[in-house]
């Protein structure tokens, strides 16, 4: 036990090792220069003067958007950072829904979070964790977005943040060249869509292809299908009631809408072009769901505007190209409700620099600058359609900016997570895998959180 017989010496060694580590650590943490500083030329910075100077201040943003898109965000706000002198620390994550909760509970929330689910935003707002948006942000949001959008971040009459990006989900992808060759016309009503499906099936091609596999989010593309058809069947008001659980999940009206989707997705004659029988939908990755269109093995694929990014390299996305999309028709061609999704910029802090970032992201200037860099859709009314990078973005923005458009947010993002990110996805996967409509809807209805 020589160690214990010389404790003073050991203590000394331990202490000096600690000191050495301190010295080493300090040596390597020499401060390096960061963004900001002198603020650039005045002409460049004129548009950002209204946000004030926030020299040396830091704002952290936490978001589910990663990789290329995240880089484009940072490029977009680089001039803003430079001119206001602040630094924006952007962090994208693949586990946003779980991690934001952990960070907020752990007392380490980001300053700003991009919420892709209004339901999640509502949970944080009700828990008193979010700070209401400033008057300026509210003014900008009211000016730039329709009430259809701003209502999703207004909880108990308090406005928490403006929308950011958007995607349109009510699209059916098709091949314009294939349609032209076979003499098919774009359907304007649901009945025409079904007739077209019959025609295509009679020609020996399975008309529809789909894929709902998406890791632990498996099932979401099927829930989009249901929501899109439900929105057309029971109208926007009925849809709101359903989302708010004032209309039961297993109501006969919902059963009818699900069966209407089932007439396509659970019909072995109609699906799954290029992949096999109905059940192959459950195991096909959503990214690959529509790809058989390019090989002529399938003709129609219902998926959001962002599917433009998943076509094989070299596929031309345009009205006269290899693939394009048309609006998923309803029973009445005069009514065109649009199902979509997007993010909301809500803040956990109300420091002036945080509010300045929120205000900047709510402007049309930001949206336009972002669009110039690459594919991007925003429902911001101030967006210049000429900045759209591709035809599908253009079509999406036209639909979103049309004053007659009735917009509704993806319902599974609005429901409590136990349903919207849980039993609804799981239930629809089971439904595709063979369970009948009533059993599945009863299961989802029973899982709705009490209280």
């Amino acid at each position: 036990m020589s160690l214990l017989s010389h404790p003073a010496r050991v203590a000394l060694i331990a202490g000096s090792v600690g000191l050495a580590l301190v010295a080493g650590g300090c040596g390597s943490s020499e401060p390096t220069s960061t963004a900001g500083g002198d603020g650039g030329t005045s002409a460049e910075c004129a548009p950002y003067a209204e946000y004030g100077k926030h020299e040396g201040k830091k704002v952290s943003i936490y978001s589910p958007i990663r990789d290329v898109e995240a880089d484009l965000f940072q490029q977009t706000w680089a001039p803003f950072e430079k001119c206001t002198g602040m630094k924006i620390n952007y962090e994208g994550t693949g586990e946003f829904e779980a991690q934001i909760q952990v960070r907020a509970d752990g007392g380490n929330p980001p300053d700003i979070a991009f919420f892709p689910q209004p339901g999640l935003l509502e949970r944080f707002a009700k828990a008193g964790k979010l700070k209401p948006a400033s008057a300026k942000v509210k003014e900008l949001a009211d000016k730039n977005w329709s009430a259809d959008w701003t209502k999703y971040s207004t909880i108990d009459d308090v406005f928490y943040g403006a929308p950011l990006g958007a995607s349109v989900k009510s699209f059916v992808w098709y091949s314009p060249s294939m349609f032209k060759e076979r003499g098919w016309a774009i359907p304007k009503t649901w009945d025409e869509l079904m007739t077209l499906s019959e025609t295509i099936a009679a020609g020996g091609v399975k008309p529809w292809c789909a894929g709902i596999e998406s890791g632990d989010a498996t099932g979401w593309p099927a829930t989009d299908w249901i929501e899109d058809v439900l929105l057309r069947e029971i109208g926007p008001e009925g849809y709101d009631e359903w989302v708010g659980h004032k209309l039961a999940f297993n109501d006969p009206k919902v059963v009818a809408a699900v069966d209407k989707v089932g007439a396509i997705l659970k019909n072995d004659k109609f699906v799954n072009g290029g992949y096999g029988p109905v059940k192959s939908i459950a195991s096909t990755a959503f990214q690959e769901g529509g790809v058989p269109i390019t090989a002529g093995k399938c003709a129609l694929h219902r998926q959001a505007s962002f599917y433009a990014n998943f076509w094989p390299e070299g596929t031309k996305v345009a009205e006269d190209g290899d693939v394009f999309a048309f609006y998923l028709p309803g029973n009445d061609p005069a009514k065109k409700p649009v199902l979509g999704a997007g993010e909301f910029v809500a803040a956990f802090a109300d420091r002036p620099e945080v509010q300045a970032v929120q205000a900047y992201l709510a402007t049309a200037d930001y949206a336009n600058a972002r669009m110039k860099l690459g594919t991007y859709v925003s429902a911001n009314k101030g967006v210049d359609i000429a900045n759209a990078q591709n035809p599908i973005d253009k079509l999406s923005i036209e639909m979103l900016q049309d004053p007659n458009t009735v917009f509704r947010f993806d319902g599974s993002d609005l429901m409590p997570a136990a349903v919207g990110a849980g039993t609804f996805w799981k239930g629809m996967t089971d439904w595709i895998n063979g369970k009948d409509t009533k059993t599945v809807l009863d299961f989802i209805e029973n899982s709705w959180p009490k209280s």
Partner: protein
Amino acid sequence: MNLDFDFAAEQPKLVQLLLGIVAFCAVVALLLLLLDRAPMRQRARLHAAILLAPALILLAIGLVVPAVRTTMLSFMSGDGAAWVGLDNYIWMFTQPEAVTVLRNTLIWLALVPILVTSVGLLYAVVVDRTRFESIAKSLVFLPMAISFVGAGIIWKFVYAYRPEESDQIGLLNQIVVALGGTPQQWLLEPPLNTLFLIVVMVWIQAGFATVVLSAAIKGIPAEIIEAAKLDGASPVQMFFRVTLPSIRSAVVVVLVTQSIGTLKLFDIVRTMTGGQFDTSVIANEMYNQAFRYGETGKGAALAVFLFVLVTPIVVYQIRQRREAVR
């Protein structure tokens, strides 16, 4: 992507790190000084107390407090705002989808330890004292080096499905097609899909069982084997009357560790099916409820139940060990 490590931006974290290191050194120094100053007569007991204190404190913070809090949460509503009594437990044992989860865990628990042990034992006996023993053992041990997630991805490809008319990319379906069958969606059909997942676990763990049991077999005294042979024992008799009783404690160790590992199993299910198609197990459902659905109460109830299931196995293992020491 910007991967440069910005020291200035990370400074607060670095300072925290340094503070931690300094604090650690200070605590160690303090402990040693205390040990030195302790009165001579009571040294043994004081030494034990001083040296155990940090471990006990850390254990309390890291294990006891969370366990108590989890137990409390399991009697509360999803957001932890109100007491709901036994509701979460009632949900667990009555809702069909939750019952499916419990049933699956039982299937796993019933099959995995037995399969792993028997495959490992059989393999160990067969390759014992053959020329290629070391190579054979390395081969079966290799999967142990692969993480559960990695193995899950590999086997997802083995089970991959492509329609009949196109080329198969999954090994299993390719074999089926070569034998004249039609490709199947292996992971979509309950309850068979659970068995296909169990195969993955057995594939990973069999190597561990082989190595442990093979070492035990080599430890059997040569005299006993010789005596049995002289008495004219057949190979089968040798195995059941001599080998198996001699390595009983090693078999128990394998069974127990496999049982605990199986109860906690999460990665394979999450990677391969995400708990869809009636394949979810307790640990996977616990994660879903607590972290994805925001239903902390239900998640905590599942965690408590998992703990209750593991406890008897751990107690049994400790008893066994005590007996072995005696």
